[in-house]
């Protein structure tokens, strides 16, 4: 592995195994995903609700609780010269990696704060458990410096969570995730449920953190406009699988998978009132997937093979991978 790589996954599978009235129901939320993520990049993952993108992120962060089960594969981090197979580590070893090496901003992070203490106390709790031997004043000083560097108002430290707007709380949550300078930050839908102007502030902050730490941010959002703005490379997920991966520009200007094309062409654009069509039908249930390519029931270009066999994610250009029979058939 070249030393530009921070994270590699090998055929990871994470399923929800549910017990419904005595019979087992298996939801294949992440199914055979292979990713190679580099140092110093913002890697975007796009997809609709229920496509498995949050489960993928939890798997990478090794945060799995029943009924979610890890069914196979490997998640390997490259820290300095060390290879870390995170899913083989003990609970205690995983805990040590968190926040200092990998940090996770869950969806709705604006509501994670303890409502009855001031934010500076949250900072203190956080730093106390990671940096030993600091006095109270030293810790508050670190917090103030950190808030100031990111251009947030100092007075937020003296505020209770409810006194701040959702957008400000979201930005404080993101700031906390970057506090210990982790090599990888996962952000799950950080802009969802925020107003456009506030969204822009969140994107600005994520960019600032990435630029100053030169680390990796893995950004999950369904909003293609946000990806266009911030992601360097990106993957499109559909029904638990990566169906296309490329540089963000390539995804937008040369999408190969019919689903990706629908996602991009259905977005309304200013200055163009022409009719925008969206993909017919509805996303499939992960508990009851169609045979063959999971997109085939909605795909206008499907052929026989699509209904029978699942297409592999194959190289379809330099830095461009696609899982679709339309583009991979040529190789046979």
């Amino acid at each position, binding site marked *: 592995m070249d030393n530009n790589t921070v994270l590699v996954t090998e055929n990871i599978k994470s399923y929800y195994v549910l017990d419904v009235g005595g019979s087992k129901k298996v939801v294949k939320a992440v199914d055979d995903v292979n990713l190679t993520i580099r140092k110093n990049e913002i890697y975007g993952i796009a997809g609709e609700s229920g496509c498995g993108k949050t489960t993928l992120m939890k798997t990478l962060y090794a945060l799995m609780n029943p009924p979610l089960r890890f069914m196979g594969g490997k998640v390997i981090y490259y820290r300095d010269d060390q290879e870390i197979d995170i899913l083989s580590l003990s609970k205690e070893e995983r805990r040590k990696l968190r926040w200092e090496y990998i940090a996770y901003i869950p969806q709705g992070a604006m509501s994670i704060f303890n409502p009855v203490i001031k934010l500076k106390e949250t900072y203190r709790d956080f730093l106390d458990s990671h940096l030993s031997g600091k006095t109270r004043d030293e810790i508050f000083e670190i917090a103030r410096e950190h808030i100031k560097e990111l251009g947030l108002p100092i007075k937020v430290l003296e505020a209770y969570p409810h006194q701040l707007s959702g957008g*400000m709380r979201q930005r404080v949550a993101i700031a906390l995730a970057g506090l210990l300078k982790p090599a990888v930050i996962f952000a799950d839908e950080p802009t969802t449920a925020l107003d456009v102007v*506030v969204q822009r502030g969140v994107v600005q902050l994520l960019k600032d953190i990435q630029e100053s730490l030169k680390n990796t941010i893995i950004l999950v959002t369904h*909003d293609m406009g946000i990806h*266009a703005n911030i992601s360097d490379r990106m993957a499109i997920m559909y029904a638990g699988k990566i169906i296309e991966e490329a540089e*963000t520009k390539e995804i937008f200007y040369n999408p190969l998978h019919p689903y990706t094309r*629908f996602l991009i062409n*259905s977005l309304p*654009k200013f200055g163009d009132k022409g009719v*925008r069509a969206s993909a017919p039908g509805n996303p499939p249930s992960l508990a009851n997937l169609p045979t063959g390519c999971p997109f085939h029931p909605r795909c206008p270009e499907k052929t026989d093979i699509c209904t029978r066999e699942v297409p592999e994610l194959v190289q379809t250009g330099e830095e461009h991978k696609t899982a679709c029979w339309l583009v991979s058939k040529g190789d046979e």
Partner: protein
Amino acid sequence: MKPLIEIENLRKEFFLGSILSRDKIVAVDNISFKINPAEIFTLAGESGCGKTTVARMILGFEEPTAGRIIYSKESSDNKEPVWFTQGIQAIFQNPFETFNPLRKVEHYLFETVYNYKLAESQEKAREIINSKLESVGLSYEEVAGKYPSEFSGGQLQRISIARALLTDPGLLIADEPVSMVDASIRMSIVNLFKKLKEELQMSILYITHDLATAYYMSGQIAIMFRGHIMEMGPVEKVLMEPAHPYTKLLRESIPEADPAKKWTDRISISDLESDEYLRKGCKFAGRCPEAQDKCKEHTPEAAYIDDVFVKCHLYSG
């Protein structure tokens, strides 16, 4: 053309805090607008701008502090609530919360038919329901006997539109109808609104923070901020050549789905919306790049640039 609905100097005040120290918040501050027949009118703005309060007053859920709502000659002064006249129906943001998970969705459809006495027999009711479901791309067979959990968000939103259509309303109020719906089916709902407008000559009050879909489907747009309409007019003008600094900021803050159009300049963000509500003068003055001294003291008068209404000191002379 005679407007379908006229909103005249509508005002709503709320109070914050305890009995001893009460702050008055004017959630909707004397706003007026008109919607013509067969028109999609967008009321856009950020959360906490008062747009949902306007919808709630039109629907009669909230008593206005002052002002009038006139719907095809019937004024809201008339004690009979306007929404009761069948003419105005509504759909809401979260289709999963619209329906009780323990009730079959068809009950809602039959209930509406019987409440408004639209049919005498069950067969007739089913016929009406089927025709409305067909106009949203579903059929009675697909819906009959099923619970809300058996549908996707997009399908439930279509069913709630079909329910609203049962009374043949002149005006449909749609409060953030697509913000909870998946990207790949969002446009199919938006296209459905366009179709309903064209085929049924229905008007729609589209309440949203999403200016891209507003541009795509509506004719007129009003941009609200902290209780005031800041700019109002045809979408082509308001969104393509915005006059008000707030509209400009909103327009620039929409992430365009084009990697060549990334944001380059930086913005400042407000800390607290209640501070902005309580501010004297123009509510946007605290964040406005073009604010002058008078903006912080006096509320600007409305001005017109051709057919665009603007509330800003830059234009009121």
